[in-house]
C-alpha cells in the first residue's frame, strides 16, 4: 500500500438493495477501490444526518449512501425520506464549507453489483481530486490558539496581564 | 413566413451532384424555406478521409459545425448522406469522448472558433417530413405525379448507424413524401442496401454489382424510376449503365433525386431541376392533370 494519502469513505448501505448489491459485486469478483467502509443499516431511511456529520467529523473524506431505487424501497418509502434529508443536508454542508462532491446518494438495486463498483470508484476518484477533508486535523488546528493558555495553566502560572504576552506572537495587531 | 436553415452542400453538390442542389433549393423555397450556405465551408471529412485519420475527419467536420453555429440559424441542413453522417458522427464523438472533444476544441481555438455542440444536423428529408409536414407539401402540388411508379432508395448512411429520424430497417419518410405528391411506391426490399458507390471508382466489380442488384430489383418490382436522397447513390446508380450492361446485360432505369420529383410536382421545369444532367433520362411525364379546376 502506498504511503500517499488515501481517501476514506464511509458508506451507509441499506440491507435489501445496496448491501446485497455490494455482496453481489463480491460474488462476481468485481474489483474496486478499497477506500470505502460499509456500515449496514436496514434502510436508507435509517440514515440519520448525525451519522453523516459524525463520520465527516471523525475523519471521513466523503460519505456515500446507498438505497433502493424509487418505488423499490423494501419499506415503501424510506428512500424518499433519505433523499429529502439528503437534499437539504447537502446544501447545509456546502454552507459549512464542505464540497458537494463529498456526499453522494445513489439508488443501487440488489442486481446492480456493477453499479456498486462504478459508484465507489467514481466517488473515490472524486475525493482524490478534492483532496483530504481532514476535519479532525482542522479541529486540532483550531485548538492550537488555546494551547498557550493551557500551558500556562499547567505550569500553574497566573498571567500578569490578559494577553500582552501572547498577542504579538500570534498576531501583531488587528490591522 | 420563411424559415431559415444553415446549409452545408458538400463537395458533391457542387460537382457530380449539381442537380440535387438545383432541385433542392427551389423546392424548399416553394415551401418557404431558405437555405443559407455556410461561408467558406470545407470538405466534411467523409468516408475516404475517415480511413486516413478519424480524429482529423472530426476536426474537419467541426470547422463546418462551428461556422454553422456562428451563422446563428438553429439547424444545419446537409443533403449528402455522407456529409450528414460525418457531421452527426462528429457530434456523437464530441459528446461521448472527452479526448476527441479536447483535440477538436484545441484545433478550433487555433483558428478562433468554438463549437458548443448545439446545432442539430438534419437531412432535407427529415426537414420536409417533420418540420414542413406533408400537408404543406400537398398544398404546393400543382401537377401530381399520378401513375409514376417509384422505387424509394434511401441508401445506407442516413439510417445507419444512427437512427435519427426514420426506421433503420424500413424507412418510410420518402415513401410518404412521394405518395403525397402522387407517386406510387413499389415494394422495394433493397431500400437501405449499400449502393457500392465508395467502391465503384476503385474496385469496379463489387461496386457495380451492388448497383446492379438495386437497379435489377427496381426493374423487377415494376418501378419506372428510382428515387434517391444522396448524390453518391445517384451517380453510382446512374453513371455506370454501360459498364453494368457489359457485365450483366442492360438494366436501364433512371435514378433521380426525390427533390427533382417534388419539383416536377410543384410545376417547376425539367431543366430548372437539373433533370437533363442524368445519364439515363427520365421518361416524359403524362400530360399534367389540372388541379383544383373541378375536373
Amino acid at each position, binding site marked *: 500500500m502506498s504511503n500517499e494519502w488515501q481517501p476514506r469513505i464511509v458508506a451507509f448501505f441499506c440491507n*435489501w438493495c445496496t448491501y446485497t448489491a455490494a455482496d453481489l459485486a463480491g460474488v462476481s469478483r468485481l474489483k474496486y477501490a*478499497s477506500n470505502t467502509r460499509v456500515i449496514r443499516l*436496514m434502510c436508507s431511511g435509517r440514515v*440519520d444526518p448525525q451519522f453523516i456529520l459524525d463520520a465527516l467529523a471523525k475523519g471521513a473524506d466523503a460519505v456515500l449512501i446507498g438505497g433502493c431505487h424509487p418505488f423499490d424501497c*423494501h419499506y415503501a418509502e424510506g428512500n424518499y425520506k433519505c433523499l429529502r434529508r439528503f437534499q437539504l443536508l447537502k446544501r447545509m454542508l456546502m454552507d459549512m464549507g464542505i464540497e458537494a462532491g463529498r456526499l453522494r446518494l445513489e439508488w443501487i438495486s440488489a442486481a446492480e453489483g456493477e453499479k456498486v463498483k462504478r459508484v465507489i470508484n467514481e466517488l473515490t476518484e472524486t475525493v482524490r481530486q478534492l483532496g483530504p477533508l481532514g476535519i479532525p486535523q482542522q479541529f486540532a488546528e483550531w485548538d492550537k490558539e488555546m494551547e498557550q493558555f493551557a500551558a500556562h495553566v499547567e505550569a500553574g502560572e497566573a498571567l500578569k496581564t490578559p494577553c500582552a504576552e501572547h498577542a504579538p506572537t500570534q498576531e501583531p495587531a488587528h490591522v | 413566413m420563411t424559415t431559415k436553415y444553415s446549409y452545408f452542400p458538400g463537395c458533391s453538390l457542387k460537382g457530380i451532384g449539381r442537380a440535387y442542389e438545383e432541385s433542392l433549393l427551389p423546392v424548399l423555397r416553394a415551401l418557404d424555406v431558405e437555405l443559407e450556405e455556410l461561408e467558406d465551408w470545407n470538405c466534411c471529412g467523409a468516408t475516404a478521409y475517415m480511413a486516413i485519420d478519424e480524429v482529423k475527419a472530426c476536426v474537419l467536420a467541426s470547422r463546418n459545425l462551428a461556422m454553422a453555429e456562428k451563422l446563428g440559424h438553429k439547424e444545419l441542413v446537409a443533403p449528402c448522406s455522407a456529409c450528414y453522417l460525418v457531421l452527426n458522427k462528429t457530434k456523437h464523438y464530441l459528446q461521448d469522448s472527452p479526448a476527441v472533444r479536447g483535440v477538436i476544441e484545441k484545433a478550433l481555438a487555433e483558428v478562433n472558433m468554438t463549437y458548443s455542440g448545439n446545432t442539430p444536423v438534419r437531412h432535407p428529408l427529415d426537414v420536409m417530413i417533420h418540420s414542413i409536414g406533408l400537408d404543406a407539401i400537398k398544398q404546393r402540388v400543382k401537377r401530381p405525379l399520378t401513375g409514376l411508379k417509384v422505387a424509394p432508395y434511401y441508401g445506407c448512411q442516413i439510417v445507419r448507424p444512427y437512427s435519427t429520424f426514420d*426506421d433503420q430497417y424500413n424507412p418510410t419518410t420518402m415513401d410518404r413524401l412521394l405518395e403525397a405528391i402522387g407517386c406510387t411506391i413499389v415494394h422495394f426490399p433493397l431500400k437501405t442496401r449499400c449502393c457500392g458507390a465508395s467502391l465503384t471508382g476503385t474496385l469496379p466489380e463489387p461496386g457495380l454489382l451492388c448497383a446492379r442488384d438495386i437497379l435489377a430489383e427496381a426493374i423487377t418490382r415494376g418501378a419506372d424510376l428510382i428515387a434517391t436522397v444522396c448524390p453518391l447513390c445517384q451517380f453510382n446508380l446512374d453513371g455506370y449503365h454501360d459498364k453494368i450492361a457489359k457485365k450483366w446485360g442492360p438494366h436501364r432505369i433512371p435514378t433521380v433525386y426525390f427533390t427533382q420529383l417534388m419539383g416536377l410536382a410543384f410545376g417547376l421545369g425539367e431543366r430548372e431541376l437539373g433533370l437533363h444532367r442524368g445519364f439515363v433520362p427520365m421518361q416524359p411525364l403524362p400530360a399534367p392533370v389540372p388541379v383544383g379546376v373541378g375536373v
Partner: protein
Amino acid sequence: MDKPSKQTVRIGFYICHCGSNIAAMVDCPAVARFVGTLPHVVLSRDYKYMCSDPGQELIQKDISEHQLNRVVVASCSPLLHEHTFRGAVEAGGLNPFFFHMVNIREHDSWVHTDPAEATAKAKELAHAAIMRVAMHKALEVKKVPVHPDVLVVGGGIAGIHAALTLANAGKKVFLVEREPSIGGHMAQFDKTFPTLDCAACILTPKMSAVGTHPNITLLSYSEVTKLDGYVGNYTATVKRKPRYISEDKCTGCQECIANCVYKEPKFPDEFNEGLGKRKPVYIPFPQATPQVVVIDPQTCLNFRNGELTGKCKKSCVAACGDKEAIDFSQTETFQELKVGTVIVTTGFQAFDAKRMPQYGYGKFPNVYTALEIERLVNTSGPTAGHVVLRDGKTEPRSIGIIHCVGSRDKKTNRWCSRVCCMFSLKLAHLLKEHTGAEVYNFYIDMRAPGKGYEEFYDKLLEEGVHFIRGRVGEVTDWARTPDEEGKLVIRVEDTLAGYVRRIPFDMVVLATGLEPHADAQDVRRMLNMSCGSEGFFLERHPKLAPVSTFTEGIFLAGCCQGPRDIPDTVAQAGAAAAEALALIDKGFIEQEPNTAFILEDECCGCKSCIPLCPYTAITFDAANKKAVINEALCKGCGTCVAACPSGTIVQNLFDDEEIFSEIEGVLAHE
C-alpha cells in the same frame, strides 16, 4: 440478561480464512494480532473455516473457558452466515445478539487486489465491530405463528406442481391464474424434448387434479392486486374478472358455444396463437381447467366496446336453459385471502419477433414463431396437425429455423433463453416428421446440456436435419437467382465452412426467446421482491437460496426467475413447495428483533414520527399525549429513529450509539 458494564465487556474475535477466499488477500493472522490489542478483546483467533462445526464449537468452548460475553466473527456476508454464528453464540450460553459479524469476503477480499489495502480494511472493519459489539444489548427473538394456507400466483406447470405438492401434504392452497384456464405455456406445446412425450398427456392429468383437489381453491381469470402483512401473516387481495359465466353453475356442456349467434368461429384464438378461430363464447382449449366457458366482452354482440348493451338475442342463454350459468351482469369483484406464505410462478412471455424487423415476422406471412409452430404441428391444433403455410394449403418443402431470436443480443435481450436450442431441435424433428421437408437450423452455439439433450441433438444430426453455425443476417423476399424467386431467402455466414450463403425457404421459424412479463415490475413491487437487471425476479442466493426471495415467506419457481425448461421448472416448484412446508410445519417465524420503540417518559408527543411509518405501527396515545410503536407492526426500517428530533426512538440492533461506535471504529486509523 443485562448488559454488562463496559468494564466487564469481554470480547472474543475470530477471523475466518474461508480457505483461501479470504486468506489469499487478507493477512488473517495479522488482523487477529491487531484486534487482540484492542480494549475489551480477551482473545483473538484466526481459523480456516469459522462456519464449519469445529469453528462453531471453538466459539462455544471459548465462551465458557474465557467468560466471553461478546463475540465478533470476521468472515463472509452477514446475509449468509449471521444466523449460523448467532446460533453458535447462543449454544455457547450467550444471548445471540451479543454478536456482530464483519464482512471481509464479499466486501473486501473478493473485491480488492492489493493485500496490504485489503488487510488494512479488514482491520478497520474489525475494529468497528469490536466497538459496536461492546454496545450490544441482549434481545429476545419474537415468535409469530405462521398461517398454514399458501397462495400460489400463476397456474402454469410450476404453479400447478407447487400447488399439488402442498395440497397432497394436506395444506390448503389458493391457486390464482389470470387466464381463464390454468396450464400456461406448457399447455400450448405439442411434444416435450428430449423424450418427445406429448405435453398434454403429462400436463392434463395434473390440471384436472388441481381442479378436483379438495385442498386447492382455484381462482382462474383472477389477479392478485395487493399483498399486505408479513411472513406467516399475509393478506392477499385478488381481483376476480367477470367471465359472465357462473363458475358454480357451468357444467362445461358447451351448449352455449354451439348455439352462439355466430355460427362459425370468427375471432383469433389466443390459445392457438391466432392461427385458429374461436367464438365470443368459448372454452380456451378442450382440456381447459376449470371446464367453464368464458365470454369475451370485446367480441360478444351483447356488449359494445366491452360495455353491456343487451342487444344480442342471447341464444346462448337459451341453450344454457335451467342451469342459468350465463350472467351478463357480472362485474369485477375483489376477494381477500389470508395466507402464511406465497409461491410466485408467473412465468414468462415469448419475445415479440416484430422487434427484429430484419427477420420479417409480421411482414412475410410464412415467417412463424416457434409457439405458432407448436400449435401447427399439434393434432388438436388449428390445422389438426397438418403443417401448411398461411395460405392454408401449401406444404413447405424447405424450412429454416433461426435460433436466438431476441436472445444473446444486447439490442434486445442479453441472456441465453436456455430452451430455444432444444425446442428448435424438437420442432426440426417434428416438422421433418410431418412434412418431409429439408430443415435447416441456424444457430450461434448449440446448447444441449440437459439429461438426454446431447443425445437428442445426435439423433437430429443422424436424421439429416441441417445445421449451419451462423446467426442469420436477414430474411428477405429479394431474389437474386431464379431459384430464390417467390421464396424467403436467408442470408447467413456458414461460419464453419467459411462462406456467406443465401438459402431459399418456404417457411422460416423464429426460435423466440423468453423474457419477463411486461408487467413483471408491477408484480415485483406488489410482492416486494427484487428483480435482476434483466427483469426476472431475483432469488435470495443463486446457490444457497435459489427459490427464496429477499422477502421472507415469498418463494419463486419457474421462468419468472429466469428461462428454464420443464424439468427444471418442476424441480424448482417442488423446492418452493418444500420451503413453504418447512415454514408451515415449524408453525412459527422467528422475527429479527430489530424493531423500534419509543422511550415513554421522554417522548414529547411532537408526532413527527407518526406519518413516517409505512406500516402505521406508530400511533398517538391521546391519553398520555405520546407516540407509541406497536412492535408487532414495526418492520425495523429505522426511518422514524433517524427522524425523531429528540432522539427518543430507539431501534434494537441499530441503536444510535451502536452505529456511532461503528463509525468511530472504521475511522479509528489514519
